[in-house]
């Protein structure tokens, strides 16, 4: 009965793993994307997920079938093949083609997210141990340790740098992550579709309180944003 136990345990284990992967990814991506870039990234992800899942399921199925079907039995001799050039060419060519196929949409999306379009507003984001400083150049507004406020439906360009160590500005729902390096300026952009409060945090190890370096972004309507900016200027 030993073999039956093996079979059941293996099938159970692999199915469990598979189920977790599938259910989990679907669940994980319910995080609501709120910028065009984030939408694009999720579409690309599902494409890649589909292509790679084919190979994954194929490999795990072959493994499972082999485990169940080819366990040692008295009187059954093992096969003797150990070479098959055609087969080897096939399993080299098909994955290569799959990778070439995937790289197309991937590079398109990349082009889209790394080209900063003509923006309606520029913010400067400066990392400090362990808080964020935001500047609105041209408006003379500078503050730190408060939520970033931006208008919805407008293209916001962000220039990132750091005052001390490497930080990384990361808001998952925007599909945006960009390192803030000292001595360099990096650029990214986002256009948030709807007002709301979005969270994120520093994504590059930056010292003791790295885990506390949270990010809050308040996205408000353009009118409200103008009011807020005027308020801030008065206070400055």
């Amino acid at each position, binding site marked *: 009965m030993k073999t039956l136990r093996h079979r059941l345990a293996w099938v159970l284990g692999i199915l469990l793993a598979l189920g977790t992967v599938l259910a989990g990814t679907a*669940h994980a991506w319910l995080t609501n994307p709120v910028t065009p870039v984030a939408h694009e990234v999720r579409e690309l992800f599902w494409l890649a997920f589909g292509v790679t899942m084919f190979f994954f399921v194929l490999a795990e199925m072959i493994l499972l079938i082999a485990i169940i079907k080819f366990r040692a039995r008295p009187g059954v001799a093992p096969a003797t093949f150990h070479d098959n050039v055609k087969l080897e060419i096939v399993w080299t060519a098909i994955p290569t083609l799959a990778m070439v196929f995937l790289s197309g949409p991937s590079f398109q999306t990349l082009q889209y997210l790394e080209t900063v379009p003509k923006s309606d507003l520029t913010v400067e984001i400066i990392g400090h141990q362990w808080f964020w400083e935001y500047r609105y150049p041209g408006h003379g507004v500078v503050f730190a340790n408060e939520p970033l406020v931006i208008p919805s439906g407008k293209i916001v360009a962000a220039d990132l740098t750091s005052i001390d160590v490497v930080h990384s500005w990361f808001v998952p729902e925007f599909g945006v992550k960009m390192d803030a*390096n*000292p001595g360099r300026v990096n650029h990214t952009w986002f256009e948030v579709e709807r007002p709301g409060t979005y969270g994120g945090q520093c994504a590059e190890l930056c010292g003791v309180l790295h885990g506390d370096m949270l990010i809050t972004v308040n996205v408000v309507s353009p009118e409200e944003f103008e009011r807020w900016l005027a308020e801030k200027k008065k206070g400055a």
Partner: protein
Amino acid sequence: MEAGTLTRPGAPTPAHAPAAAKPKSVLLDWLLTTDHKKIGVMYVWMSFFFFALGGIFALLMRTQLAAPGLHVLRPDVYNQIMSLHGTFMIFFWTIPVLAGLGNYVVPLQIGARDMAFPRVNAFSFWLLLPAGFLMLAGMWMQGGAAAGGWTSYPPLSDRQYSPGPGMDLWILGLHLAGMSSILGAINFVVTVHNLRAPGMSFLKMPLFTWNVVITQYIILFGTPVLAGALTMLLTDRMFGTAFFHPAAGGDPVLWQHLFWFYSHPAVYIMVLPAMGVISQVLPPFASKRPFGYKGMVLATLGIGVIGFLVWGHHMFASGIDPTLRRFFSFMSMVIAVPTGIKIWSWLATVWGGSIRFRTPMLYGLGFISLFTIGGITGVWLALVPFDVQVHDTYFVVAHLHYVLFGGSLMGIFAGVYYWFPKMSGRMYHEVWGKVHFWLTFIGMNLTFMPMHLVGMRGMPRRIYTYQAQYTLENQIATVGAFVLGVGMLIFMINMLASLRWGKKASDDPWDHAEFNKTLEWTVSSPPPNENFHKIPVIR
């Protein structure tokens, strides 16, 4: 010279201590040994010590992360433990334990009496041991151990932000480990090129030896770059140079390039020998020849070469040049192809066989199933837009643990169980071996599968506490980690007990078929001094 003592005319004979200088005691015998088998065993013991330490660190981290807002570890201590966990597991467990298995097995598999430079071999080992303790010593220094992660990006690792001596000890420890690595690599390369038995052509070498040799070439090309980068960091810290210091014209991103130029190939240093073990373990337990031998060798070579062209995929979010992003992205996708070839070839090896489910085989099959998951997530990560989304999140932690835990560690344990009878002359307890496998397999999936999910939802790595929305997955991961811990305890007890009370092992406890019988199974367990009474001739 008697017949049979020379590998071939003109080949160097290993320099052994003359028989007259017999050490006085067992202890001295081990301390002064230049025998590759003893050195290999010492490597394994040492690595397992650091594996236990790294494992304890991991459990401490998982305890701290069992719920949001806990105070099991202070934030600064958490960062130190996290950094040491990474460094120990990579440089003092995975790499040396595979070096140890390689040291033990490679000379046997090619029909040599010893390594080409036995004393250099001993020196490699004795460099590594103090290196680990040097790093650990940081724990008791002012300011604690290094806390920059295993990657130690400057400026965080600069004097200004890591003022204590812990970081210097980390650098020096890594320097020593790197030297040990390089010396070992020279040794392996020369051994395999010069000391093969008559008739042992390159294309007759077992796949494990092939994988080890290619790995040593990677070490030879990569490690000096790490040594250079570490030296630059050290002079930045100690003598006020400014390689990585932006205010004085340096660039922190330079470190990332130099570091990853070694540390991405390091991933292949960690996984190729483990793949070699799998190629060695699957055929005998499936009673078939390894499928596609030449394809396997070529795939390994391909991984070795392309492995040097993908380092930029660790830096997609650092603002590197768009052209570089595309190049590294494409190369990272391409490297999935030779890796895939290996997976398919293993599946074809198992297909149609008659499989005996002994512990090494379970680990071999576990390797295939789990490493595939790591490979798939690797392809996703090669896509820059997706990588930007999940870079430096727990998704990456999950991916790397599927590759290194589901891959390297499974391979290592397959090898440890497979060669344990050969090394010790005794059998381990099969049932407890299987219990260990199942606990590892289930615990591993419990621990790391949920990490994909929190990572995709935006939980960064290397944080000492997290926001409430990530609680459930982290709790599952913590439970899984303790399941793994229990499994490893069972493993330790099983092995220690078997060393003392295990059944005596025969020369070939696995009953290899003639066509699968590599040379180490033709000699006694453990092999005699100098390995072979008469150097075998391969036809």
